[in-house]
């Protein structure tokens, strides 16, 4: 059904899930994508970044713009988010040694200088954690009301010998998440909606390139797909992986790691933890015989202590993600639009 509003872009298109992918396809892939040569990964793949052949290595490139309300939230801020976003996108492509980052900052007239200093300090610290230098940047100031506070764009580049796409799963492969789910989105949502429970919730925003590096080194070639489950949460990440890899995925809900605080808030608001954004986690698709060694390596890293197997790939219901709740089964849907607290 065509309505008047199809002529406008709504927030629904920016919140992860199918509507967002449709927008990316519309704006970028259709018309701009070129044929991908020689195993390269470009726009058409709609992966976390692009991979281009450079001699006997791959150059991985990613770019991301960051807007978040509020700019400072429990556990982090927009500066830490922007650096972690670029670093993690590179990492889940298999490129964990960051060559360089760029950073563009667009600021609304009237933005407090004090906040800007805090954000800059946070960018610097996060870059140090990730071993990622910022080599060029840009600033712009726009009039009051022309944007909401501050927007950051980061682009990252890195070299790697082996690219890990999000499409490499096959039947029997096992899915691991590197830690608890939903921490970032729930902390931000609680703060944004003024929920009285935000004291206990903290974002997981962090660069995880060293964690991913440890996992990759533990079992060379055995990690065949990776994704960082940001907007749209693990549900969207798994959908993309299942669809592109032509497998079905079955998740065991009892195994999905969620902190008690996030679980309580999610139940209160009627939001599925699998739909909530993470900013310091990865989903790994691993060959079955390497699962133990990868888990052990992850758990030995301070960021991977809660790493756990959540499910595996099956040869039925291709492209679908099924959740075994212990009580029954259901299809995992992708979030459609912004996550909203529910009444019923």
């Amino acid at each position, binding site marked *: 059904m065509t309505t008047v*509003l199809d002529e406008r872009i709504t*927030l629904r298109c920016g919140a992860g899930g199918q509507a967002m992918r449709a927008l990316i396809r519309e704006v970028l892939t259709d018309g701009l994508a070129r044929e991908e040569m020689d195993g390269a990964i470009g726009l058409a793949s709609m992966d976390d970044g692009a991979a281009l052949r450079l001699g006997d290595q791959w150059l991985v490139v990613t770019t991301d713009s960051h807007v978040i309300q509020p700019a400072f939230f429990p556990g982090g801020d927009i500066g830490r988010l922007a650096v972690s976003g670029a670093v993690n996108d590179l990492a889940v492509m298999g490129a964990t040694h960051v060559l360089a980052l760029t950073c563009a900052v667009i600021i609304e007239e009237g933005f407090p200088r004090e906040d800007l200093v805090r954000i800059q300090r946070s960018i610097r610290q996060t870059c140090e954690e990730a071993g990622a230098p910022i080599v060029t940047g840009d600033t712009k100031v726009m009039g009051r009301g022309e944007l909401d506070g501050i927007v950051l764009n980061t682009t990252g580049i890195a070299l790697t010998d082996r690219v890990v796409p999000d499409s490499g799963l096959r039947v029997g492969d096992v899915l691991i998440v590197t830690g608890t789910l939903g921490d970032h989105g729930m902390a931000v949502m609680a703060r944004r909606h003024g929920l009285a429970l935000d004291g206990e919730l903290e974002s997981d925003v962090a660069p995880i390139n060293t964690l991913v590096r440890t996992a990759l080194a533990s079992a060379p070639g055995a990690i065949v797909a990776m994704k960082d489950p940001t907007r749209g949460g693990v549900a969207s990440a798994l959908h993309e992986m299942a669809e592109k890899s032509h497998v079905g995925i079955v998740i065991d809900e009892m195994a999905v790691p969620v902190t008690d605080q996030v679980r309580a808030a999610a139940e209160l*608001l009627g939001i599925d933890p699998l739909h909530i954004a993470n900013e310091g986690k990865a989903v790994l698709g691993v060959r079955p015989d390497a699962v133990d060694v990868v888990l052990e390596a992850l758990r030995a890293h301070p960021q991977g202590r809660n790493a756990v197997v959540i*499910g595996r790939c099956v040869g039925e219901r291709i492209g679908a993600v099924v959740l075994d709740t212990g009580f029954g*089964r259901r299809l995992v849907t992708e979030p459609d639009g912004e996550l909203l*607290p*529910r009444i*019923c």
Partner: protein
Amino acid sequence: MTSDNGGVAQLKFRDPARARSLADALERIVAEIGRSPVSIMHVCGSHEQAIARFGLRATLPRSLNVIMGPGCPVCITDVPEVDEGVVLARHGVRLATYGDMLKVPGTSLSLADAQAEGARIDVVYSVAHAIELARRIDEPLVFFATGFETTAVATAAAVLRDPPPNFFVLSAHKYIPPVMEIVAEMPETRVEGFLAAGHAATITGWGVFEPFVERHHIPVVVAGFEPLDILAGLVKLAELVRDRRATVENMFPRCVTKEGNVRAQEQLWRVFRPIGGRWRGIAHVPNGNLRLRDEFAHLDARKQFDIDLHTLWDFAPPGLAQECICGDIMAGIKSPHDCALFGKACVPHSPVGACMVSSEGTCKIWHQYGGHPDLAATAEERNGGRDYCAR
């Protein structure tokens, strides 16, 4: 803690082993009834959510038809009610409402559409939250109040507690008992039992269903919202159907009494009066809508603002809603495939009727699963058991 026990805090009412034995009992009792389908209806959004969330539908006997009744207060909020909110918001009045109201379609726009056009709509998670917001701002704030007894009681209490002068209520509150009468009286209705909402019954008491059961000889079971509550409620209901016993059974005694919360009932009826009105996709329900009494006219958005719905009619699409057969689907008479709109003009992100709005609405489920949900374990998984996650 989280991952030490596999990631899920084991709640008392979330024991999969007990769930399996209840599911087995249900299978047995439904088989003993010996008819197919046996149709029962739940009339509560929270039951819907729990059934969907825990995937219970996939474990129910195939011959047990658990129908989503008019139980999701968001889904049955009628088009003109949504329109009232949209018109107010488009005229610059600031609105506060529950998150799941945003996507519910009106004549031509949902509240989310109005928001995309620039209308100011705040998502709140309680009436208290809305009042707090009203106190912080110095312009009128209209609380678009939806929900059944449970949320209506909260609205009533807030109204009686002297809210700030810039706080107004646009009531789309609904009252459940009358609609059960409507469903029971639908010609050809196949509903043989009702699963009633535990939280609403904490207010009304389970005694409120006794006259209904006497009149219609259809059993009612009051149930809670954990998976075991729901399964136990279904088992009890199936037993009553099998034994042809029409009684009210309270399977949620840890919260529900026969009398209910008398003080809350007093507050509810002091603030609201029941009037007849349409429920989306169902019918005109006598005494089904709750409106503010005249005593509270100073808080009533309908009396304090000029809400002219004609402004929406210029570009209204043809009356799709009239072609919607949600009512028949809910009564168990028709299936989504009998509907000309299903999957074409009526899809999840642009729903026409209540059954496509709700995450557990029959049409939404059929659209998502391509028919009855069937997610039994694959042969491969059965052979491997469920131990792949036991590491």
